């Protein structure tokens, strides 16, 4: 039995062999013994030997085959270390936390070079917010125990690195802790994936439609629930579709192709804009779409498009416009009758009036005038607010407009015994503005100034020009505006004090309109005032054409940072 004595076999092998052979052999022996009692004596020997030999051979063959003789202990350790290095981020520190060793994976993951790390404290890689966790873990390991947990580190570029971490003490002679070894598994991607999943789930709750599609193929990679509902697609079908498919299927826009899309997205591709906004209208709704190009650090670029159904908003805006238009007609029609009838009666066209009747009708007539002004002012304000007031900006001689306004307000001022004094109105002064609106502004400021002047007072109207602005000021020497009223003087329905309302009349809308008119022409307005000394309102307008009045409504570019 030379096989047994071979040095290749370890003690374990022989032990295993014995374990197998004994139970295999025993029944054969037993059955052999039983057979000797019944079968002829001569057949026993050769059968037993044959059986035992086959069993031995099979055992040896199978054992040798399965064990294949294996790697040496040294090899096993080397393989394990290689696998460990491929999988894990490993560092060693001394007892003070100074890095003494990092493996290649550590360098790849953090982005630092070996030279930048060795000799630095490990805290270089740790965000301040986890200082307490780090100190605890370090203290724990320095007592000779092993610590495990989830750790967040900061890479060289500031990126977050999440890692399952096990830190073990390194022991010197006499069992003293001389440092630590940390073995970490990078879990950043699964963190991001989990975060992505959570975010995508959250996006399903949005009422806005969210679409993400690849920049090169224009194929969808993500649609939230609202987007799937809008398109009539599901998780499986949308992945087969592109932006072009969507436009063709939903909007029957056969003319839309990849080039049309890239033309639209050009400012994003060229980096001129961060976001493009446009309006898409189909048979059932109006949608406002915002488009962005996302360029992730670690993935292919994709577009993010967010669509919002603004049909309701549009309908509301439309009904508001109609409402304003209705007011403008429905309110003015009865006012036309009231004012017209009173005017005719007061003029004596219908017969003589007693003084008392005349006075009463005069009150009614004046108030119908005021009502007209209020209606006009409200409509003006609405138009300005809605961006519907038209401005016809052109180069004009503003001195002429001011002189016209002074002439128009002279009769009113004379009734109050107030006179206007013009300064700087003699020379031609070029200004970029809407002459009608400037007239309206001047009208308002002049009648205000006259209204709040003292009897026999003067109102000074000054025109001056600086580099690229024209400045017009209207100054009265009347009662002035109390400090507490100054802050809200440009607000709607504000007058310095309520007693003025009856005494001086006015809508309280004038100055807020004036302010809006000045600002829409690219100018600004301000005032100074002192009680019992007077008020000075000044406004500035550009003398160069630089006023973008109307924004394009179909496409709004949001400027890049």
């Amino acid at each position: 039995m030379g096989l047994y004595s071979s040095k290749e076999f370890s003690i374990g092998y022989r032990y295993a062999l014995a374990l197998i052979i004994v139970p295999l052999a025993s029944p054969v022996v037993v059955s052999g013994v039983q057979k000797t009692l019944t079968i002829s004596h001569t057949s026993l020997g050769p059968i037993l030997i044959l059986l035992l030999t086959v069993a031995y051979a099979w055992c040896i063959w199978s054992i040798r085959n399965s064990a294949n003789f294996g790697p040496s202990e040294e090899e096993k350790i080397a393989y394990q270390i290689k696998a460990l290095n491929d999988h894990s981020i490993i560092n060693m520190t001394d007892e003070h936390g100074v890095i003494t060793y990092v493996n290649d994976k550590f360098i790849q993951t953090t982005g630092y070079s070996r030279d930048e790390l060795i000799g630095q404290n490990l805290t270089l890689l740790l965000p301040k917010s986890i200082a307490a966790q780090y100190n605890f873990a370090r203290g724990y390991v320095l007592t000779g125990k092993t610590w495990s947990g989830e750790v967040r580190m900061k890479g060289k570029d500031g990126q977050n690195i999440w890692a399952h971490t096990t830190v073990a003490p390194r022991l010197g002679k006499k069992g003293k802790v001389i440092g630590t070894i940390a073995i970490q598994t990078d879990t950043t991607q699964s963190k991001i994936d989990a975060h992505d999943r959570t975010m995508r789930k959250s996006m399903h709750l949005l009422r806005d439609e969210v679409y993400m599609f690849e920049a090169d193929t224009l194929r969808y990679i993500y649609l939230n629930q609202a987007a799937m509902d809008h398109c009539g697609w599901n998780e499986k079908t949308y992945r087969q579709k592109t932006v072009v498919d969507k436009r063709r299927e939903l909007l029957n826009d056969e003319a839309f192709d990849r080039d049309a899309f890239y033309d639209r997205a050009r400012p994003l591709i060229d980096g001129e804009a961060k976001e493009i906004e446009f309006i898409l209208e189909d048979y059932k709704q109006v949608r406002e779409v915002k488009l962005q190009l996302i360029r992730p650090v670690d993935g292919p670029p994709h577009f993010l498009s967010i669509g919002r159904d603004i049909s309701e908003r549009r309908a509301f805006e439309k009904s508001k416009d109609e409402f304003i238009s209705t007011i403008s007609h429905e309110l003015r029609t009865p006012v036309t009758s009231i004012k017209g009838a009173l005017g005719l009666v007061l003029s004596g066209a219908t017969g003589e009036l007693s003084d008392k009747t005349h006075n009463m009708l005069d009150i009614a007539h004046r108030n119908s005038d005021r009502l007209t002004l209020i209606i006009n002012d409200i409509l003006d304000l609405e138009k300005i607010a809605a961006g519907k007031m038209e401005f016809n900006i052109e180069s004009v001689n503003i001195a002429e407009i001011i002189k016209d306004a002074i002439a128009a307000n002279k009769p009113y001022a004379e009734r109050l015994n107030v006179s206007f004094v013009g300064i700087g109105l003699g020379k031609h002064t070029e200004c970029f503005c809407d002459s009608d609106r400037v007239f309206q502004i001047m009208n308002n400021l002049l009648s205000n100034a006259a209204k709040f002047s003292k009897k026999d007072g003067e109102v000074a109207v000054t025109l001056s020009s600086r580099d690229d602005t024209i400045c017009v000021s209207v100054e009265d020497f009347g009662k002035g505006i109390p400090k507490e009223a100054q802050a809200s003087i440009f607000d709607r329905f504000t007058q310095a004090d309520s007693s003025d309302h009856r005494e001086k009349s006015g809508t309280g809308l004038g100055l807020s309109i004036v302010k809006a008119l000045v600002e829409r022409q690219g100018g600004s307005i301000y005032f100074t005032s002192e009680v019992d000394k007077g008020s000075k309102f000044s406004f500035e307008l550009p003398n160069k054409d630089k006023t973008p009045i109307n924004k394009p409504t179909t496409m709004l570019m949001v400027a890049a940072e």
Partner: protein
Amino acid sequence: MTKLKILHVEDDLDIQEIAKLSLETIGGFEVLQCASGKQALAEVLEFAPDLFLLDMMMPEMSGDEVLKNLRELPGLQDTPAIFMTARAQRKEIVDLKSLGAIEVILKPFDPMTLPDQIKTAVSMAQK
């Protein structure tokens, strides 16, 4: 000098009455008033006006539609027209003038000066 004949189309009867007083008593014009475009189209040829004075905002047929229909009738291609409107947008005024109106008078109008406004507009148009 013969009286200027004005066809006034206005759906609001109160305003009609005020305008009538203004145009006839103060202005000394001869006036035919109609409450709708339909009525105006039916009566205009018999009246043979020198001027149309048309309210813009009217139910059924608006002032500009009335003018278009009037122009279709024989002999009315060149009759001057004036619109009255509560809408004060410059663009609308320009649009109305492009329809052939010689003037656009804003509501509320002043009945004391309305005849003068009309006379001025007519004499300007004749120049």
